[in-house]
């Protein structure tokens, strides 16, 4: 748009129009541009873009949003601003993204809660009320026990659960959260039954595991790791398809025969009906951003795994996640 105005300025100078007329023409063009998304095509973005983050500043999702926003600002030459709209486990933020005008100036970070909040009846809108743009990260969970436990391996854990159905206590974050869903996913695949002990967030479960008040936990590998290094906890496996680079000795559940398909993922999305051309531009930019040094550095700090999927891939991922969650939550 800037270029466009500049061009007109050059043109008008030649045709001898007054500055006032030029100003009016430019203002008119801007007004028209703001009037409808159809007109904005070809020129997006021409003003700051808001990235709604439904989670508090300083959290993993917020840090990812900020790293992405920085990269996108550089890429497009307009500021991408992260705005935190917390509440209702992300729902307040999601609602705002879904109900924004589909002009590409209000986007946001989508997480697994988009699907779970809808299935649990906390949020009316489902993932279909969003335009999926691109996946930015996918993280899996770790299974851990206290270092004093007689459970040495992941097989031991399953064996013990099999022998005493519903007796092995598994602390796994909030009910319906990704750690809990991971555990349910494992129950389904391995035919075992745990005693699920819900906690208000993963760290609280680790605290009780350190004190030996619960038998095991499904938790963030990054949160477990320092206690493994300190010798208080033992990590048995990580969910997901492959081992983590930080933990080369810890097997993945997939290689042990349980390809768990629940994860903590973070993606960029907008309201439904976003112009195709905006989505395409963002896809390219996000693909570049998730490989940028600044982004990778941030991800390493928060212990998150960068993972890019384009709009189509993300849509397929969302569909699959909804299927899995529907099955688990039933």
């Amino acid at each position, binding site marked *: 748009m800037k270029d466009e105005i500049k061009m007109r300025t050059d043109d008008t100078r030649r045709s001898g129009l007054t500055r006032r007329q030029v100003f009016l023409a430019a203002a008119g063009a801007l007004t028209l541009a703001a009037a409808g998304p159809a007109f904005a095509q070809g020129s997006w973005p021409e003003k700051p873009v808001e990235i709604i983050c439904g989670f*508090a*500043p*300083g*959290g993993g999702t917020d*840090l990812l949003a*900020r790293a992405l926003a920085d990269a996108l600002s550089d890429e497009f030459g307009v500021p991408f601003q992260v705005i935190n*709209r*917390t*509440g*209702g*486990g992300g*729902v*307040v933020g999601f*609602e705002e993204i879904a109900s924004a005008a589909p002009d590409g100036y209000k986007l946001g970070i989508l997480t697994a809660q988009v699907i779970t909040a809808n299935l*649990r009846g*906390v*949020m009316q809108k489902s993932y279909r009320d969003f335009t999926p743009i691109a996946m930015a990260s996918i993280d899996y969970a770790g299974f851990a026990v206290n270092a004093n436990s007689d459970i040495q391996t992941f097989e031991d854990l399953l064996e013990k659960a099999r022998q005493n159905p519903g007796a092995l*206590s598994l602390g796994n974050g*909030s*009910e*319906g*959260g990704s750690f809990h869903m991971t555990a349910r996913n494992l129950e389904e695949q391995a035919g075992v039954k745990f*005693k699920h*002990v*819900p*906690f*208000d967030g993963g*760290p*609280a479960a*680790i*605290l*009780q595991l*350190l*004190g030996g*008040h*619960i038998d095991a936990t499904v938790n963030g590998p990054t*949160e477990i*790791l*320092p*206690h493994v*290094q*300190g010798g*208080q906890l033992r990590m048995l496996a990580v969910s997901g398809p492959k081992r983590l680079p930080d933990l080369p000795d810890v097997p993945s559940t997939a290689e042990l025969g349980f390809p768990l398909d629940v994860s903590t993922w973070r993606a960029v999305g907008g309201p439904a009906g976003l112009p195709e051309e905006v989505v395409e531009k963002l896809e390219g930019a996000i693909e570049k951003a998730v490989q940028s040094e600044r982004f990778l550095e941030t991800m390493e*700090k*928060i212990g998150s795994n960068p993972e890019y999927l384009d709009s189509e891939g993300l849509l397929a991922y969302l569909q699959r996640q909804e299927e899995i969650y529907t099955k688990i939550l039933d």
Partner: protein
Amino acid sequence: MDALVNLAHGFERALSLEALLFCFIGVTVGTFVGALPGIGALAAISLSLPLTYYLDPMVALIMLAGIFYGTQYGSSISAILLNLPGTPASAITCLEAYPMTKSGRAGPALFITAIASFVGGSIGIVFLMGFTPVLAKFAIGFSSADYFGLILFCLVGASMLGVGSPLKGLCMVAVGLLLGLVGTDVTSGTPRFTLGIPMLTDGIDLVAMMMGLFGVAEILSAYSKGGESLVSASAVALRSLIPTRQDVREAGGATLRGSLVGAVIGVLPGMGATLATFIAYGLEKRISRNPEKFAHGAVEGVASPEAANNASVQTAFIPTLGIGIPGDAVMAVLIAAMMIHGIQAGPLFMVQQADLFWGVVASMWIGNVMLLILNIPLIGLWVRILTIPSHVLYPSILLLVCIGVYSVNNNVNDIIIVIVFGAVGYVFGMFGYPMASLVLGVILAPLLEEHLRRALLLSDGNYMIFLQRPLSATFLALTALFIVFSFKNQLMALFSNERHGDVRG
């Protein structure tokens, strides 16, 4: 000896110009943000977090920690002067300090608070320096059953805090417990009593609620009594700013007791500061030789909870730094800040990052000294706020409260909460129902429920778990004793009546 060498190292780093500067910025920002009604430590730290991205990790931590404990100082100021507790932990300060203000003794109240906070903070830091590994183990040892016992003990204790009958206190605790259940149930993940409002799925905003219950209610009641200003200008002479010798004598022991209570309770993740102040206050009231002084501006009732508050704020760093488990939302932001700088909080932190740990700890003490130096000269200024004519002061406070509460979440619902609870607080206050008991109920309800249900889940529904665990059994026994002691006159009357009846029969 090792610790002393480490500490010397720590002071060396904390006394660098940059560290001193950001420590000062932190505690100053904390004091003023804390003094502003409606903005708590969480908002202050979250907003400053991005500023620290470009600082040296230690300097960043020093500044954020400074904001945190600075807010605790600051929030007592508005609690004392205007009955506006900036944090839940200063709700209890209102009970004694505000009556002192109303009788023209705001100066001594602020003075005692500053000193008690300093002593409490210092003792908390000594605990942090000397006993982090031991206390971290102590915190880990608490199972859900033990937490339940402790919380129950505190709730019953809190019901006796009121001026009037313990029964009114008990009612307020119950109302608080019910209000505290609004939000998402941790065990089932189901939103309860939220009226379909997404904001309420995280519960009623505590700061907004307190602003209404204490501050707005106080202003309403002042207007209903004619709305004259709180203190006459003549009462603000310099002499009245300094505590009397008797004040000092009474405050001394209370400060030490409060500090010890705070330092120990603060270690428990998630409930430290607030619980510590309630326990410290209850303790003072129990052991006082003239309990009738309480609720009319008892100096011990100001010194002890303030010392407890600041001591617990320091020892709250023990689970955060020593285990890597954040006790509350503020500590979670601090851990996030450490993560951003590539520092892993956890059991190895003290060993691998000894430099950083001791630097931050040393800076805390320096920060506490700064707060003392900053706050004592400001007392005169703060007290002068009270001489502002009420027709200017009260509307200004209301406006500040609304802006403050709104700015935290950018949500109009929070202002509605202030207004609703302002009305509720006014009505309850008129009939002498203690607001502090209600606040404690609201804070502890989710924790009480969570730990009760988790303990029973783990014991397969066996209630004996609460008696089998030594810690929980001890707390339950104390609770029973407390109830018997509080109602002993009524019980004795009942008993003698029955005996009397027997004889006659």
